[in-house]
């Protein structure tokens, strides 16, 4: 029984560490998906003049998942069900910093509001900024993501040592 409890403590601490690391992973995946979204927009807008709604609806499931619901919130705006406000767009997205939201929000606000040339230039401009955000989020993920799990497990083992 004692060993079972000690194993559970290690697993629990490891899980807590995983939860912390997930935030970094989510951030990294989110910015990666945002970059893919920009690239898709650029292609669709330039070649097929596809409507925004159709572009969002035709996104890969993986991109949709990694966008963590921002696509759904934006679709609600396109359907005139909500106003385009920061609080609505980033609803249920807790892993972004305010400074990052300040970069992403104007991107969604400018979508669909100009001709192909201007829109394409705007998207490329935002793409550069998102790539920079992705680089730092990815570096953070590599640095702190695995570290959180390791620290969790170490904490668990430390508790085991104390109890034993």
């Amino acid at each position, binding site marked *: 029984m004692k060993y079972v409890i000690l194993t559970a403590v290690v697993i629990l601490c490891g899980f807590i560490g995983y939860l912390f690391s997930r935030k970094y992973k989510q951030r990294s995946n989110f910015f990666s998906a945002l970059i893919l979204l920009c690239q898709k927009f650029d292609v669709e807008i330039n070649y097929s*003049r*596809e409507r925004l*709604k159709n572009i969002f609806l035709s996104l890969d499931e993986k991109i949709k998942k990694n966008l963590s619901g921002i696509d759904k919130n934006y679709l609600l705006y396109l359907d005139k069900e909500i106003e385009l406000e920061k609080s609505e767009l980033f609803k249920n997205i807790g892993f972004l910093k305010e400074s990052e939201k300040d970069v992403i929000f104007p991107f969604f606000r400018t979508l*669909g509001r100009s*001709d*192909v040339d201007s829109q394409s230039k705007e998207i490329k401009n935002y793409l550069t900024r998102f790539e920079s955000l992705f680089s730092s989020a990815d570096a953070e993920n590599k640095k702190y993501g695995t570290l959180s799990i390791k620290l969790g497990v170490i904490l668990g083992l430390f508790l085991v040592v104390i109890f034993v």
Partner: protein
Amino acid sequence: MNLKKMGAVDYYEENIMLKKILPDKIYEILSEKVNFKFINEIRVRAGKPIVLSIGGHRVFLGEKGTTGNIKDAIFASKIMIEDIIFRASECSLYSVNEQIKRGFIVTAGGLRLGLGGDLIEENDKIKTMTNFTSVNIRIPHEIKNCSLSTFDLITKKDGVYNTLVVSPPGAGKTTYLRDFVCQLSERNYAYNVLILDERGELDLGKDNCIGNFSDKISFARKKIGFENGIRSLSPNLIVTDELGQSEDVDAVLYAVNCGVSVLASVHCDSIENLANKPFFEKFIQDKIFKRFVLLSLRNGPGTIEGVYNENFARIRC
């Protein structure tokens, strides 16, 4: 004029589109306090009161419906205008830029938004329009049988006379053309009709609106549309809206020389002034058009003032 008595059709599709593009507050007032099917135009100008055109009369839109008092009117903002245009383009202005360059957007259901703003030119070509300051929402109406009283005058045993529908803006030219095409189909005149819908207004996208014998080319210039259409679709009759440029005249002459009848419309307030319009001398001299239908706003849009022959002699009304 009572459009309902004339057979105005209640259009669900336009209402849905208006709901999509108008601010909720404006839509609610229009749907609850003004009857959509009587509205011809909604004019929204930045910093100015919203004006409705109902049966040829202009009134302000207020919180309680229509009003003649400017103090009770709702004033539009620039943001409101930009949002209407954004919504009308299905939130994708880039997808309708070719239309914007020509000063309008046509939505599903045939709503036409005329745009005012800053035209951006580059290398002598219009690139786009920005900084929108006004929008004129034209709501199309299908008025069943509005062309019926003139139908037998512009059709003959083996076809349709080359006919020009003449009227000032907003007097029902497009509605007349649309109904005439529908009448041809309903009377089983199995002519192949080509509708050259340069601005996307003629076909409202509803069942049988343009009849069962019609083909359609949309958003093409008349010169290209006539040439391609005649080659590929072999029409007996081409129906098109708003002749105005020299190349439109050439396109009509090309069709007539190919043995294809033409039913077209033109902006002009009287038959007398028609001859003074630039590029139209050829039509008059060669008597290309055998019938002229003159419409006016005298008793509201669609008032038929008269039908004239190629010598401008009145043959009815």
